[in-house]
């Protein structure tokens, strides 16, 4: 019989507490999305007859269109980031292209306060009559997704042994052929993780969206915030909208956790 130490009990208790702490708000929101407005005002209510009124309301409110716009912004941003980021990251990692300046630029761009860049985007959007469209939002999201994706990929490319691409070149491929056919397939899992992470960053951003496209082209977080501000507080619909925003990324996150650490820390932590 193994002795259960006090430390082990504390450990289990901490994890249970953390689990409850994490889950309670999510469950409460899920419950709230099935409550009537009057039920929502009763904080003690746990068991009740569910109503789908909030869901019907939120689905007819254009939230799905907003989700669609968020998806367009996210996918476009990630696609551009992955295409130019992977080719750039490859030569930065393997050929030291651009020197430390490029590398540092990618890192520094990640700490830029969004307030620095948002006003130029806004004035340019006005000048080009693109305000309240998705175009400036995509540009703005590129400003933080591109450096992050590139930063991830530099680390992943560095982990690919150099001899692999040299072998491919001796075997009959050009430099680009070696990159495309041999090196890129090696970083595919990392590329996938970087793409998903970049997508969640774009999907979750509200600051740029709120300023650059507050109206008819509102992206999902802005639309969710709208449930709270302009039509008075519609708690049920807001809860349903929150769930719509949360569920896809939480599912996506499940697949990328391991790769994420390696990417974020740029090799400071081996996973």
């Amino acid at each position, binding site marked *: 019989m193994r002795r259960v130490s006090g430390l082990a009990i504390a450990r289990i208790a901490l994890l249970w507490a953390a689990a409850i702490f994490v889950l309670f708000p999510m469950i409460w929101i899920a419950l709230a999305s099935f409550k009537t407005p009057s039920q929502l005002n009763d904080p003690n209510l746990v068991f009740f007859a569910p109503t789908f009124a909030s869901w019907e309301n939120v689905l007819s409110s254009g939230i799905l269109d907003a989700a669609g716009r968020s998806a367009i912004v996210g996918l476009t941003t990630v696609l551009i980031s992955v295409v130019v980021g992977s080719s750039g990251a490859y030569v930065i990692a393997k050929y030291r292209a651009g020197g430390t300046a490029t590398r540092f630029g990618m890192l520094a761009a990640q700490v830029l306060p969004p307030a620095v860049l948002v006003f130029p985007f806004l004035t340019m959007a006005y000048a080009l009559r693109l305000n309240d469209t998705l175009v400036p939002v995509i540009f703005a999201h590129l400003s933080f997704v591109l450096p992050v994706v590139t930063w991830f990929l530099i680390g992943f490319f560095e982990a690919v042994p150099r001899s*692999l691409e040299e072998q491919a070149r*001796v075997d*009959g491929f050009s430099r680009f052929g070696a990159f495309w056919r041999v090196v890129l397939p090696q970083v595919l899992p990392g590329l996938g993780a970087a793409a998903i992470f970049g997508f969640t960053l774009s999907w979750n951003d509200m600051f740029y969206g709120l300023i650059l496209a507050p109206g008819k082209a509102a992206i999902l977080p802005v639309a969710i915030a709208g449930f709270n501000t302009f039509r008075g507080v519609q708690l049920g619909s807001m809860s349903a909208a929150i769930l719509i925003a949360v569920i896809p990324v939480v599912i996506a996150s499940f697949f990328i956790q391991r790769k994420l650490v390696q990417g974020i820390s740029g090799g400071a932590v081996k996973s």
Partner: protein
Amino acid sequence: MATVTFTNVSKSYGQTQIVDDLNLVLPDGSLTVLVGPSGCGKSTSLRMLAGLEPITSGDIAIGDRVVTGLEPKDRDVAMVFQNYALYPHLSVRENIAFPLRATKTPRTEALKRADSVADSLGLSHLLGRKPKDLSGGQQQRVAIGRAIIRQPSVFLFDEPLSNLDAKLRVETRTELLQIQRRLGITSLYVTHDQEEAMTLSDRMVVMREGRIAQQGTPLEVYSAPANTFVAAFVGSPKMNLIDGVIERGTFVSETGVRFELQTDQEDGAVTLGVRPDDLLVEAPGAISAPATATVGLIELLGPRAIVSLSASGLTLTSVVEASNLSGMAESATVGIRVRPGAWHLFDRESGERLNVRES
């Protein structure tokens, strides 16, 4: 099939000269081994031939074709890397077929030839596996299979055995040699292991600091090292190198140890080289030599033993037949002499070999 020629090839990074004016001919169908300590420029030379490193000056030709400046893919060479560089995302069959696929051979034909190459290497049962599911020896074979499938003009080997354990290394070495002989493809092989170089090569090229220290057959290099560097590098255990002077045909070390060489070398400062096998030890009680030494460590290696000796400040190594070890124990005093004729003299200043005979 081709003769490979390096003409005045140099390579430098900024101020650092990696390879300095290399002139080298790899005869058609031969296996040449480049050997030397790390940083001597041997790998760089190989990579310049592969086209993976640009050349600072000079030319490399494969057959009649000058390949300087060509991309690796246009040189018709195949290479086996130290870590095998197998493509992790491809199966064994696809790995072997890869060079053919890269050069646009139809898929079915490429795979058919991959199968027959795999068969010749005893890999048939592994065709569907991924590299990570193979042992080190199997990975090595796949890398070799990938190199031979295209029947290139030149094979390049960059320390291909150094990641294998000792036993497998010897087996694979033999196998590599058989494959090379069978195919008769000109090969350049790089290693830091002088024993590997000795056993494998038709011609052996010892490099030091970007230059050729000596080239020749293994026997030539072993029996007549051109300088103290090669003398110390080739052969195991290491050759004894002793600084001293010649006085009327007798060698006297700086610390006073005398060896009667009966050489016609004129008197003056030299470095004497004696291989451990040629440093004879006389058991206590049977000492007739003018020099004596104290026995240090005795390391038994089966039929022979390596005996460390110290003789008035000199540390020497001798290899002794196990049957002659009787009476020898640590800290015993023994006589030492040099096997007649089995010595090498080098200029003390330059380290170059002095070509002198026994008088």
